[in-house]
């Protein structure tokens, strides 16, 4: 994509540098910007924009957006645009988005004596209890009692997307009150979600699940050995980027995608969306050129290229109507976008995420009481949020 931009925009040369680190780890950016050698453009996980803006790492784009295109905000999905804002100012342009579904391996479900057709989205979402029954039939252990294959680990976050946010939204939880600037991890829906994860872990054996994960999804794993791709896991919650891995590594995998299971019959299926954004770090000496580049990347042309090439979805609304961009299963993800959830854009978004993850770890692995774990997350994050206000 960068090559295309460079070819079509003479006079400006963009160099693409990949940096390591998880979504909330921006050590390299921080030190580079502080040292005066920061990049002119950076790709940042969108839900951390408010946090980085609060820390002063990002250039305020409000004026330049206003000057170039006053209607820009209306061209993007509302939640995506909301994530680029901090205190009413624009600090980023939204790039791609995604949504989460339940992937299921048809062969493994058939082998366990169930009809995979019941998973077909046409028949509506399955309940958590139904999935539990199927999952238990698929679990297999070896002579030592360790799992060699599993049906579903709803709370796994190493190879799938069983995050606190996923199940919190499924159980109707609210994670923050943006008007009062409060995080609300002890919201009844969130607590219910954590209780669900705790019970599931107790059912499977917390340490045995952990050992399964260490075995089949060790740290820094090669992508082609993903446990769903090699048929070690029959169901998982994950996003549309997996479509690409399957196509690339295991094109013959007999799988399908459907709604994330619902707590009880009649509930509306839920999902959530994240995605990336482009920002200009403070201290950039080429703000105008950088803005030109990021508005191209996040505009119709750039996002179209990215959608086709990556099996991610655009946040640029006009592109969502163009069905030719989405093949096969990808259409289902796109359809979910209309009613998707997103994480609250808080200036402590990264910290909150980590605190929730820690609570989830305690609840599943150590079987801590959900209320207690979530209260601790509140105690960690709220004082920081008060400071950032």
């Amino acid at each position, binding site marked *: 994509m960068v090559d295309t931009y460079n070819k079509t925009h003479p006079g400006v040369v963009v160099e693409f540098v990949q940096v*390591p*680190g*998880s*979504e*909330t*780890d*921006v*050590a390299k950016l*921080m*030190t580079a*910007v*502080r040292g005066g050698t920061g990049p002119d453009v950076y790709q940042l996980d969108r839900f951390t924009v408010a*946090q*980085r803006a*609060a*820390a*002063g*790492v990002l250039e305020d784009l409000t004026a330049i957006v206003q000057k170039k295109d006053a209607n820009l905000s209306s061209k993007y999905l509302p939640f995506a645009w909301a994530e680029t804002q901090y205190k009413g100012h624009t600090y980023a342009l939204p790039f791609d988005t995604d949504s989460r579904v339940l992937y299921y391996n048809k062969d493994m479900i058939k082998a366990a004596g169930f009809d995979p057709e019941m998973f077909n989205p046409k028949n509506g979402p399955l309940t958590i209890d139904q999935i539990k029954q199927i999952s238990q039939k698929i679990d297999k252990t070896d002579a*030592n009692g*360790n799992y060699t294959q599993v049906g579903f680990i709803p709370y796994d*976050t*190493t*190879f799938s997307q069983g995050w606190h946010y996923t199940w919190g939204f499924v159980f109707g939880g609210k994670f923050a009150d943006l008007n009062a600037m409060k995080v609300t991890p002890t919201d009844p829906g969130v607590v219910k979600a954590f209780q669900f994860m705790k019970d599931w872990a107790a059912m499977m054996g917390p*340490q045995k699940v*952990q*050992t399964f*994960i*260490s*075995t089949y999804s*060790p*740290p*820094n*794993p090669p992508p082609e050995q993903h446990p769903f791709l090699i048929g070690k896991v029959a169901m998982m919650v994950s996003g549309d980027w997996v479509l690409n891995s399957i196509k690339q590594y295991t094109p013959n995998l007999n799988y399908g995608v459907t709604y994330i299971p619902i707590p009880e019959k009649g509930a509306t299926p839920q999902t959530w969306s994240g995605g990336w954004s482009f920002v200009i770090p*403070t201290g950039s000496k080429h703000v105008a050129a950088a803005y030109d580049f990021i508005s191209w990347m996040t505009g119709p042309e750039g996002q179209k290229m990215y959608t086709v090439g990556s099996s991610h979805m655009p946040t640029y609304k006009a592109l969502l109507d163009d069905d030719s961009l989405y093949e096969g299963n990808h259409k289902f993800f796109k359809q979910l976008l209309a009613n998707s959830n997103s994480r609250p854009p808080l200036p402590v978004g*990264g*910290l909150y*995420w*980590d605190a929730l*993850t*820690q609570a989830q*770890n*305690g609840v599943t*692995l*150590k079987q801590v009481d959900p209320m207690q774990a979530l209260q*601790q997350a509140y105690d*960690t994050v709220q*004082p*920081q949020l008060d*400071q950032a206000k």
Partner: protein
Amino acid sequence: MEIRDLTAFFYTRGGNGMTHSSRRNLRNGLIFVSPWIFGFIAFQIYPILYSLWLSFTRYSGFGKPIIIGFQNFQQLFKDPLFWKSAYNTLYYTLLAVPVGVVVAIVLALAMNQKVKEVSIYRAILYVPSILPIFALSFVWVVFSNPRFGLLNLIGQGIGLPVIDWIGDPKWNKLSIVLLAQLGAGGPALIFLAGIRAIPSELFDSAQIDGANVFQRFFKITLPLITPIILYDIILGLSMGLQIFTQAYILTGGGSSGANTAGPDNSLLFYVFYVYKSAFQYTQMGYASALVWVFFIVSMGIALAVFRWAKAWVNYDVE
């Protein structure tokens, strides 16, 4: 005994008694080492003092630090992750240092065997410690896989149950202790030098007196290498307390989904937490406070070790 010589140098020649040429020598000497002095002030003294000042502020790394007095330190003692990371680090260090000393001595003894191929053995035993620790860590992930890893294949061979060396909070710190032993070749060389420096007459006369190999080791070798043991303990302490890389890689610090440091933060070591505070949560002030508490506690531990060492380190033979 370098320090004693240096003080002697300043006492006898320093001050008014300096001759013209020695004063010139001193000046030239200072000019020659001035790059180092400048670097030391700019890159060591200044950042250290700056971090002390930062520890009394709230600072994201950008904008102006806001002075908040002792708030960071008060918050620190209420912070469960502070206690967790301190516990993890002490647990690791108290395990890794003694194990490290024993392994290094055993390696040194092995390297000291009087066989023809000893140089080959020395090379084999030393080679793993040449590898950078981050490379070893990646290898270790494969080694310690619960189902396919060599570690568990050996373990099962001698009748141990399957151990999850990465994902089980009870075992994964021990796993890093084992990993650290791959670097034992360095200290082992120093022990080897120490053992070879022991006069062979001592062993010969002990042997004539009928001392067996264990008596010779515990009565001669061990007492005479106690200064090296102390050195190794201090070095091990400082490396152990600052452990970071292994945990960062074994918890997939570079890949997504790794937002806690191992299951239940079981590999959240102190320096790892400092790193997270500073660069992920952009709390430079809080991170500086963490570092200063760490510095004071480490100094305390080092002093305690030196004091304790007086009871058992043998300085008679040098």
